């Protein structure tokens, strides 16, 4: 079960790396055509993070119940679940920001507006917060504070 939990976590991490590269590259885009090209790889990240978020929680809970060393009410597991919920909520907001931007790009929106939104700090900061929460979950899962 730990193997599946790990694979699901890596699926999320892969999506976060993909989105990080997109956010960084997006800030350097100069035309609408380049931006459209960049957004073509976005759906892969969407699939990875969508599947990963659900599965990591499912396998994590099964693991907590099936492994004698852990209990679902252990402090570090509760902290992990709270961080997971915060991660999902912030991630959803980040996803909405960039999905709206992708729609604008595909509908031949104003080039200047698209590029300005790609360079605006809002999306990048939301993404940074999502990555930060994921790293906190990783630290919690590895160090298991209080266990």
């Amino acid at each position: 079960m730990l193997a599946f939990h790990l694979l699901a976590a890596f699926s999320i991490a892969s999506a976060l790396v993909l989105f990080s590269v997109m956010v960084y590259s997006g800030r350097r885009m100069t035309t609408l055509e380049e931006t459209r090209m960049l957004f073509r790889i976005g759906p892969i990240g969407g699939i990875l993070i969508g599947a990963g978020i659900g599965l990591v929680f499912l396998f994590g809970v099964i693991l907590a119940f099936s492994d004698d060393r852990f209990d679902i009410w252990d402090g570090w597991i509760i902290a992990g679940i709270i961080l997971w919920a915060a991660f999902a909520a912030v991630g959803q907001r980040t996803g909405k920001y960039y999905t709206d931007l992708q729609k604008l790009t595909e509908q031949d929106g104003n080039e200047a507006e698209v590029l300005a939104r790609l360079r605006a700090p809002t999306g990048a900061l939301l993404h940074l917060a999502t990555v930060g929460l994921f790293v906190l979950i990783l630290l919690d899962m590895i160090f298991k504070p209080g266990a």
Partner: protein
Amino acid sequence: MRPDSINLAVFVHVLGAMVLVGGLVTAAAAALIGWSDEAAGLRRFSYRTLLIVAFPGWIVMFAGALWSESKEKLENADLAWLGIGHIAAEGGGLLLIIALILGGIGQRKSRGDDVNGLVKASSIIATFLVAVYVVAIWAMGAKPT
């Protein structure tokens, strides 16, 4: 439960592995999506991701692996999961370097948006490495004997 002294090394190892796998997935996705594009934009994006994200990730993952192995005193242990990890880390690293060299030569040789066989070979290696590391992640979690 691992002693806390080992956890930092494991954290470095896992974080590096996540960046490595994420970089490989991104590079492979961009290469496959842009495979038959006339414009070379996504293929260049794929190569740059391999170089700037996946390769540094591999270095951190490998350093973390050696560090945690020495902390856990597993250098001479004969364990199947550790063997799979070594093959994936060392063999995968070698393949990654080959992919970077092929892709680098391919990028230099390609004219404008011309598709180059070497760049495609580099993308195929990156895609293969994603599969290799999925097996390695499974082995690290399942710890087969």
